[in-house]
């Protein structure tokens, strides 16, 4: 079996019930009877979604408009958290204010990591889907990709430190091989190390959805392209990439949302010196300033949703699946 089978075609119960399926309406002619089973079937997940996602989200938005002092959150309406968040954004011009700098830095990481994981992930997926003939080998190699996930996120991150540090393996090799006279400092606790760790951690999230899309491409289409005289690049660009788009978009959503909200990787690999949107929230929470933390969470959510909306504009995932 291949992973192709595990991707659901639009056969989920709610959608099926809401769409006026003639097989259902035959037994129950009334509109209510037609719609009800679907709602009932969707309800358990709907309730979970409501209780653990919608309600907390509403609370976060509500709290972000509360006032606060050193030791308590005061339930009175104020926009203080938002106003202070954007402090200096106008008055400091042309200097960029903290919040824009922070989001600038986060978005930059987001873009770099997205671009790198996309290229690497696409290449790996392409190799798996088109160069490996046997399904067994394909599956084995796909499983090999998951090996880094056998240890925790933090350990995978920390294991870079002895490698990249001032007295780490790479610097020892460089200095020992007389490539450089002084250890290279920017390998660790820098933007480089943050991006490296992100790419290492999250490329897999690109590989699997893209591989999944590619595995479902009808091989006859590629043969047809070849027969029609397309060269390798033309086939890639005009056939494979358009058909792998849903995978690319799903992988991108994974990577973008994780990188936008991350503060641990940025903290550990950036030596806590690099700002990130998640870090701002953490600092506020630790100082017991819940309303500004909530306001920052709302801001992060808006930005992330904005990016995802843009991505889904490029490809309608629901249609493509």
């Amino acid at each position, binding site marked *: 079996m291949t992973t192709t089978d595990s991707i659901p075609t639009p056969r989920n119960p709610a959608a099926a019930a809401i769409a006026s399926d003639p097989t259902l309406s035959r037994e129950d002619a009334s509109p209510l009877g037609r719609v009800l089973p679907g709602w009932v079937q969707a309800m358990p997940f709907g309730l979970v979604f409501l209780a653990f996602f919608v309600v907390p989200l509403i609370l976060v938005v509500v709290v972000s408009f509360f006032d606060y002092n050193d*030791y308590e959150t005061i339930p009175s309406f104020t926009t203080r958290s938002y106003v202070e968040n954007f402090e200096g954004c106008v008055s400091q011009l042309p200097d960029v204010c903290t919040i824009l700098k922070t989001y600038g830095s986060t978005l930059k990481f987001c873009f770099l990591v997205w671009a790198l994981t996309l290229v690497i992930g696409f290449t790996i997926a392409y190799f798996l889907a088109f160069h490996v003939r046997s399904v067994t080998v394909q599956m084995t190699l796909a499983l090999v990709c998951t090996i880094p996930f056998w240890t925790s996120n933090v350990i995978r991150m920390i294991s870079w430190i002895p490698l990249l540090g*001032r*007295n780490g393996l790479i610097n020892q090799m460089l200095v020992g091989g007389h490539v450089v006279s002084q250890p290279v400092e920017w390998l660790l606790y820098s933007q480089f190390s943050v991006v490296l760790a992100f790419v290492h951690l999250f490329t897999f999230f690109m590989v699997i959805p893209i591989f999944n899309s590619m595995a479902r491409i009808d091989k006859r289409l590629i043969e047809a392209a070849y027969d029609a005289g397309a060269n390798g690049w033309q086939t890639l660009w005009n056939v494979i990439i358009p058909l792998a788009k849903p995978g690319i978009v799903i992988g991108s959503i994974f990577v973008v949302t994780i990188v936008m909200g991350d503060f641990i990787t940025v903290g550990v690999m950036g*030596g*806590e010196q690099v*700002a990130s949107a998640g870090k701002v929230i953490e*600092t506020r929470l*630790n100082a017991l*300033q819940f309303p500004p933390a909530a306001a920052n969470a709302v801001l992060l959510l808006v930005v992330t949703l904005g990016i995802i909306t843009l991505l889904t504009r490029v490809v309608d995932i629901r249609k493509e699946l």
Partner: protein
Amino acid sequence: MKKIDETSGLSRRSLLKTAGAAAGALAGAGTITGFPAVHSQENKTLRYLGTAVNQSADIAKKVKEDTGITIEYVAVTTDDVTKRVITQPNSYDLVDTEYFSLKKLVPSGNLLAMDAKKIKLFDQITPIFTKGELPNGKKIGDQGTAPKKVMFLEGQHSTKFSKTPTEWATLIPTVYNADTLGIRPDLIKRPITSWAELLNPEFKGKAALLNIPSIGIMDCAMVVEATGKHKYADKGNMTKAEIDLTMKVMTEAKQAGQFRAFWKDFNESVNLMSSGETVIQSMWSPAVTAVRSKGIACTFQPLKEGYRSWASGFAVSKGVSGPKQELAYEFVNWFLSGWAGAYLNRQGYYSAVLSTAKANMEPYEWAYWMEGKPAEKDIKAPDGTLLEKAGASRDGGSYEDRMGGVACWNSIMDENDYMVRKWNEFIAA
């Protein structure tokens, strides 16, 4: 009877919740016996909220032997202790927290005032806490949240700090210390005598700072004052202008590449120092010990501007009453009675009641840790690992020298909110 049932039910549930943290302590204490014993023992259980630093399995084992009290540790970070006290006062019985947090904790009304009359050795608690002076009468620095400022409440149910001693204490002190910069003498190769060295371009890319705003800002203030750029009226309670100035100096250094990293976790500071990533940084005493125990030279360097000090102590949750409250007092009294104090002193901290701790230490240990004399014999940690060979003496010397040299205390400023915002700006710079 109903009440007891409730308590036991509660603690059983919390036992499940904190199973991970408590497992070590429980195994050591040998509570895992037959069913009949469990019920009676559960009534002598205290949920002890604090940071892992103070929560030793040895102490839990010893207190079980001496008093029959089972300690269930709830180990969280410094910031989370404060968060828990304010948001979940029923999730613990006894809390071990820092004095500087009291400005947040006391107004919340979630802690019970401790009745000094019920603390047998209260009069023997070091006057650092009650009067802000050493046992020999020398006054010590009181900038920031010095314990004497927040040690007493005006009354049992008051949320106002009293300037003079009263019967009602906010915390019963457990442990305190004087912090300074840690350095790698083998890599620096020259004497370091001032906080200003943290920003010395000589150590560009090899310095580190603590990334916990309320503590880190104090280190920054020590540095800024040492460079002669500003003299603070009270480093622990800066004005907005002073916060701006402090952060400006630090931001310039950061942008010039002075700092290798900031650290937040004890272990991070150990790794930075032992791997040679940094040679000078904010540090805590046990972290210096940890670096040294790897055979790497590391000094907790006394500096001429003095130390940044901190202290923590016990308080009881407002939800605790009746027999449970008596149990908490019994435990606190046990804690001050010497064994625990000696244990803490051997880790390089200081205990609240010195006389009882002294009685529980060997004379050569007391001479090394407290009097700053060269060690007559090898100095070992409570777990038996070798800390110092015979002949070595403690960085900074005696108790009087170290605590006498305190310049300021960890604090929560009036402008705390502004400070946190500026700190975020500093990190983003």
